[in-house]
Every structure is written in C-alpha cells, then in structure tokens.
C-alpha cells in the first residue's frame, strides 16, 4: 500500500508539471489563472495523500483546509483585478 501511495504521489507531481506548463506557456492571462486553480486543487489532494503516506492525516488535513479557503480569496482577487483593469 505504501508503494502504491508513493506511485500516486509521483503521478500527481507529474500532473502538477502539466498544469505548470499551462501556467508558464498559456497564451492569455486567463489560461494562467485557470492553471493556478488546477494546481491548487491538485495540491490539496496531494497534501491529503501525503498525510495518509505519513499516517498523520489530522495535521495535513488542516493545511489543506487552509489552502482551499486561501485559494478562494486569491482567485477572487485575481478575477476582480482582471475584470476591472482588463487584459494587460
């Protein structure tokens, strides 16, 4: 089971790399924002899998809750900014 979880972790890191490609390359700014949202969802899942791997889920779940809430604040701020100022 532990090896299986490790494979999942590595696979999730590769998926993070895929989204990072979208953030780095994305033709418009909205592609970057979208990639960032994908990264944060993936990071939340990755943290919980990490918690299962270390058998300390109680600590890691708290961070992922904080991630989720902060991600909301950050993404809404970005969307508000882009709506008000237009595409740079």
């Amino acid at each position, binding site marked *: 089971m532990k090896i299986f979880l490790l494979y999942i972790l590595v696979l999730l890191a590769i998926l993070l790399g895929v*989204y990072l490609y979208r953030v780095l390359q994305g033709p418009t700014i*909205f592609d970057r924002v979208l990639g960032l949202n*994908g990264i944060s969802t993936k990071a939340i899942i990755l943290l919980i899998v990490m918690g299962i791997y270390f058998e300390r889920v109680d600590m890691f*779940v708290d961070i992922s809750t904080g991630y989720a809430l902060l991600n909301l604040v950050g993404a809404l701020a970005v969307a508000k900014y882009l709506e008000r100022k*237009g595409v740079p």
Partner: protein
Amino acid sequence: MEILSIIFIVAGLFFLIVAAIGVIRLPDVFSRSHAVSLTDSLGAFLMLVGIALHGGLGTNMLKILVVLALLYIINPVITHATVRAALRSGLKPWKKETS
C-alpha cells in the same frame, strides 16, 4: 475495504489524467475551464473518497469529507469568476474554422 479504496483512487487518477490531457489539448480558455472543472468535480471526489475509505471511520474521515465539501462549494465560484472575467474582457470563444 482496501480493494474498494484502491478502485476509487485509480478511477480518480484516471479522471485527473484525462483532465490534464484536456488542459494541454483543448484550444482556448473557455474549453480548458471545462477540463479543470472535470478534475475539480469528479476526480477530486473519487480520490478523496478513496483516501477516506482507506483511513477508516473516525474524525479524519469526517475532516476529509469537510475538505471535499469545501472544494465543491469553492471551485464553481472560482471557475465562474475566471470565465466571467475572460468574457467581460472581450475574449471570443474559439470556433471551428470549417463551419
């Protein structure tokens, strides 16, 4: 229980990988947002339920389900905000050239 959780996790991974392929392949912001929402809804659900089953009953399972509920509340809001900003800033959705 163990096997059930592995099945859930593998199914979730399938949807995550499909969404990543979609984020690379699809042509513009609007259609990519569909791929991201695919991960956010079904992929995350299957992954987290699989992990919660693996952990067994208890407060940890409950906390993981709380994170899942938060994801389900937050993600549509973020996707909608991004897409609305894209539409209002004058981006045109991609159309097939042949039509």
